[in-house]
Each structure stands twice: as C-alpha cells, then as structure tokens.
C-alpha cells in the first residue's frame, strides 16, 4: 500500500472503537484517580456511535469524510471534555485532509499537526500541563522526523505518544479536573494522554 486511503481510515477508526471498548475500564480507572471517572465510558459511547454512523457512509469515502464523521459524532455523543477536544481534533484533521483520496507521509504530518493544534486551541493546554497535548506533541514531532515512509511515520508517532503519556505521571496538572488536586495528581497518568496513545497505536497497527 502506498498512502492512507479512506478504507484505511475506516479500518483505523474501527480498531480504535474496539480498543476503547476493550480498555474502557482501564481508562476510567485512570480518570477515577485524578478526574471524574468517566473517560472510558464516554469515549466508548462516542466510538460506538461512530461505528453506527460509519455504516451509512459510502464505501469510497475519503479520509477527510471519515474523519469529519468521527468529529461530529464525538462532539455530540461523548459528554465530557474529551468530546469537544477529540471532536475538534478530528474536525481540524478532516479539514487538513481535504478531499484527498490518500495521505502520504507529508499529508499524515499535516493531519496530525492540525489535530494537535485544534486540541491546543480548544483546551488551551501547553506541553507539561498533564493533558493529552503531552502525547500529541511528541507524536507530531516524531512523525515529522520520520521521513517519507507513511508506515514509519505512524510507528514513530505511536511510540512517541506512548512515551509522552507515560511522562505525564510525575507531573502536576494545570488543566482539567485534575488541576484541582495539586500535588495529589503526581504519580497518576493523564487519561487523555493514554487514550491518545491508544488511538495512535491503533493507527500504527492498522493495515
């Protein structure tokens, strides 16, 4: 396969939905420690709704069309901060993808960058605030540095997001519900950074 087409995008989203369903208790447990204990359930509700709506989409829908459907569905079904944050990420990603039939490595980097920028604009978090930005930013940087092999870029992004998520553990939170906890947030991984890592790992493993 050369680039990432609409069918790949759809398989990726289906893999994300399956992983979120499988790991929702784990994500919620992370959120219970430093948040409001709903991240796994909220994302699962959102991605199950996405699966339902994907069936109505044309088989030859572009990556941008798939991403846009994910965006609008997450925004209206997730119910927590993850809804507007991931919804905005997928919306900006779909705009960056435009009507291209396939994304090459450069296109992937544009899409990931747009997603990350959308999250930053919506949530106003910076790197080090113990949020999903701490997984997204290293992922974007790693994908950009990976060269022109789209597979290598996906793998680099997934690996960097996993490291970024782990690196949120020693941090004090400056955004979101965890920011009310002060130093008690130290030692806990940010749930949003972990779900970001999950999504990018699923992308790297989708053929």
């Amino acid at each position, binding site marked *: 396969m050369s680039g990432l087409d609409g069918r790949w995008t759809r398989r990726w989203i289906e893999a994300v939905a399956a992983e979120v369903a499988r790991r929702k208790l784990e994500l919620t447990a992370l959120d219970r420690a430093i948040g409001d204990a709903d991240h796994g359930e909220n994302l699962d509700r959102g991605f199950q709704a996405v699966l339902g709506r994907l069936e109505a989409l044309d088989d030859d829908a572009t990556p941008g069309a798939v991403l846009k459907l994910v965006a609008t569905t997450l925004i*209206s079904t997730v119910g*927590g901060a993850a809804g507007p944050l991931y919804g905005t990420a997928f919306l900006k990603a779909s705009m960056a993808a435009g009507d291209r039939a396939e994304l090459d490595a450069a296109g992937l980097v544009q899409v990931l960058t747009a997603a990350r920028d959308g999250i930053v604009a919506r949530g106003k978090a910076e790197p080090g605030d113990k949020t999903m930005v701490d997984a997204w930013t290293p992922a974007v940087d790693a994908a950009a540095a990976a060269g022109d092999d789209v597979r290598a870029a996906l793998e680099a992004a997934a690996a960097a997001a996993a490291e970024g998520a782990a690196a949120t553990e020693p941090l004090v939170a400056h955004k979101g519900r965890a920011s009310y906890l002060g130093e008690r947030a130290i030692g806990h991984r940010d749930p949003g950074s972990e779900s970001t890592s999950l999504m990018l790992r699923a992308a790297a493993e989708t053929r």
Partner: protein
Amino acid sequence: MSVGLVIVSHSARIAEGVVELAAQMAPTVTIVAAGGTDDGGIGTSFDRVQAALGEADSGDGVVVLCDLGSAVLTTETAIDFAAEPERIRIADAPIVEGAVAAAVAAEAGGSMDEVVAAAEPVAREPERRADAPDAGPGDDAESAAEPARLEIVLENEHGLHARPASELVRTVSGFDAAVAVNGVDAKSMLRVLALGLDRGSTVVFEATGPQAAEAIDAVGALVRERFGE
C-alpha cells in the same frame, strides 16, 4: 427584547435551579437551561447546548454561563458551529452569582457586553481610585462637574440584598447617567451585592451625566419607599 441567557452545567438540576433563581430577578428575559448529558447523566451535551443557544436568542444575542471545564469546551465548540458566532458570548463568571447578575443586566436592557461585564466577578476588577466613583465618566473635562449626591440610611428590612439590589440596578439603568453607590457602579448587580449593605447602613449615591439629578431623585424615592418591601 433583551439579551438571552444559557446556563450550561454538568448537572441538569443545577442548570434548572440556576435558571429558576435568575428568572426571579428577570421575568422577561429568556433563560434556558442546558444541563447534563443526552441520557440525563452528569456531563455536558453539545446538542443540548446548541439547541439552547438557538432558543435563547431572540435577536439581541446570547450570554452563556458555564460551570466546570468541559461545559466551557462544549459551549466554545457549539459557538464554532453557530451560524453567527459573534452573537454569543461566554461570561467568565461563577455560574450562580454570574447568572443572577447577568439576568438583572439583561432585564435592564443591557447589551451583550454590558451583560457579560455585569456577570464577571468583582475580584477581577482593577483597583479603583478611592476618591472617585468608578461609574464616573473618567478624566475628560466633563468630569469636573459636581456629581448629584444623596446620602441616605437604608431602612428596608433586607438592606441592599438581592431583590432590592436588582431594583436599584433596574432603576439606575433607566437614566442617561453614571451612578455610583458607595463608590461602585450601581448598574452592576455583583458590585452592589458585594458592598453587603444591611438595614441601617448609610449609603452615598453619586451621579454624573445628563440625567444625574433625575437618577438621584429616582434612587431617593426607591430607598424611601423601602424598595417596595
């Protein structure tokens, strides 16, 4: 018509309760609750917020009061999707006090900017000069004019608490005058309430502007009739 309000809370009951409280102060303002998720749980619903924004806009715009983080994120996302985003503003204010203050300002016919300003907290205001009422027209030449002044003791049972304070705000908003009560803007519900003036307090009203004298007369009448209590 007036500016409409939307109350966005993680809890449907909080949103409805805030609407109930604020509506008491503002019987003609459209105030719409957007609380909880679509299935009645704790969270915020993009669809509910979007519907409430449409319902609350009767032509003069909408001001939104939010509780915690994702209520703000959901509202901002809904604004991004709005056909006319410039007609919607989020007030950075505590949801209960802010909603009451915003409702009073909207009831008095305030613009979106005035409603937002009324809601936003007193604590964020910069320090004011002790020698000048903040409602004064500033440092231009006209400010040299002597303000119309009234010093009076509050004799109504509840002093300048919520309902009398809203009466005061409504009364002074009807005049082309800047009115200060003990040095704070008498058109700002939150600032008036923050004075904490009880029965027996001595209050100084000062007004400047074209209708300063009329405004002071109206305020005097209001205080003497004990705010209708």
